């Protein structure tokens, strides 16, 4: 942390003590090496996240292949308009985050605070839109569980979204598999939303610290690594958008 002080043990050590920034830990040769080590560790963490989401994506691909008609019909219940809006919101928040990293690197405190605040707000907009989408699912009883309702898939003519997509009625056993789609939909978008919530919480902390002058003293590791996390969450959404919303539009 930039506000930590280097503690010197004994005077003879102080003589041999080369001048270095307070944030350079003593087990590193130089600032460069310290930043590289932190970046490397962050990437290793992100790869464990990639493996975790990779499992969900693989499950989705397998079930989509098995219960193809059910997945197509269930996918038609999602709103492409909301999905596209949210994709744009998230891409824009990635941009503001990248600008935040640049502001930290070039020591612009006000620019950094503005970038972090914009990223924070766009993150909240994303979650707000997600809430609207979840609300629609709850209203139509498309949440897996005891109250799951099959009427959108058994009787598509009386369902606006299904009718717009020209859905044909599914046989009962196939219609029941739409619940698998929505289980995966809520698991994947829910885990993604949880990552967003954690990210927004950390952003709040960073705004608080940046106002006090942190991150613009040359020590940008925290902002840089948080940026990696935020962009990773963006990438997950890019794939979720393609797989959940788009690939079954036209069947």
């Amino acid at each position, binding site marked *: 942390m930039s506000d930590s002080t280097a503690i010197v043990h004994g005077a003879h050590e102080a003589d041999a003590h080369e001048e270095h920034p307070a944030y350079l830990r003593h087990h590193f040769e130089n600032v460069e090496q310290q930043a590289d080590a932190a970046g490397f560790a962050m990437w290793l963490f992100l790869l464990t996240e990639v493996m975790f989401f990779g499992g969900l994506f693989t499950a989705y691909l397998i079930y989509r292949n098995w219960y193809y008609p059910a997945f197509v019909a269930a996918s038609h219940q999602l709103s492409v308009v909301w999905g596209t809006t949210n994709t744009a919101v998230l*891409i824009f928040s990635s941009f503001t985050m990248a600008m935040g990293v640049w502001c930290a690197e070039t020591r612009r405190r006000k620019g950094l605070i503005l970038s972090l605040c914009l990223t924070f707000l766009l993150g909240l907009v994303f979650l707000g839109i997600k809430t609207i989408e979840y609300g629609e699912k709850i209203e139509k009883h498309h949440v897996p569980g005891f109250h799951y309702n099959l009427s959108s898939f058994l009787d598509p003519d009386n369902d606006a979204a299904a009718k717009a997509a020209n859905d044909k009625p599914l046989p009962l056993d196939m219609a029941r598999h739409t619940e698998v789609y929505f289980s995966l939909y809520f698991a994947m978008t829910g885990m993604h939303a949880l990552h967003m919530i954690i990210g927004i919480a950390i952003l709040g902390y960073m705004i608080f610290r940046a106002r006090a002058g942190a991150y613009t003293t040359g020590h940008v590791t925290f902002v840089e690594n948080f940026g990696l996390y935020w962009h990773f969450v963006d990438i997950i959404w890019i794939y979720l958008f*393609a797989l959940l919303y788009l690939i079954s539009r*036209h069947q």
Partner: protein
Amino acid sequence: MTDQKEMEAASHHVVSPKIYVIILLALILGTAATVWASFLELGPWNPVIALAIATGKAMLVVLFFMHVKYSSKLTKLTVFAGIFTLFTLIGMTLADYFSRAWGQW
């Protein structure tokens, strides 16, 4: 020695806002393209195109927003190894599921 130091300084590259703006525009364009393509009737090519565009967008984010293009060889190798492992695992899992004639699920 000076050259070495300069090279190290260059390796910690500060990516300019101009590049970020270009990438932002490319990503928005990619989003528009993938939504547009999803409404075309392309049969089996619909998911292929959607995933290809998504992968293109993801690569832009990884290379520029996440600075991998300007990072050390260690970082590049780490990212590549991770993606390679992911695709190996997905590929082997799918090959197993789709090549068995169970048919009783």
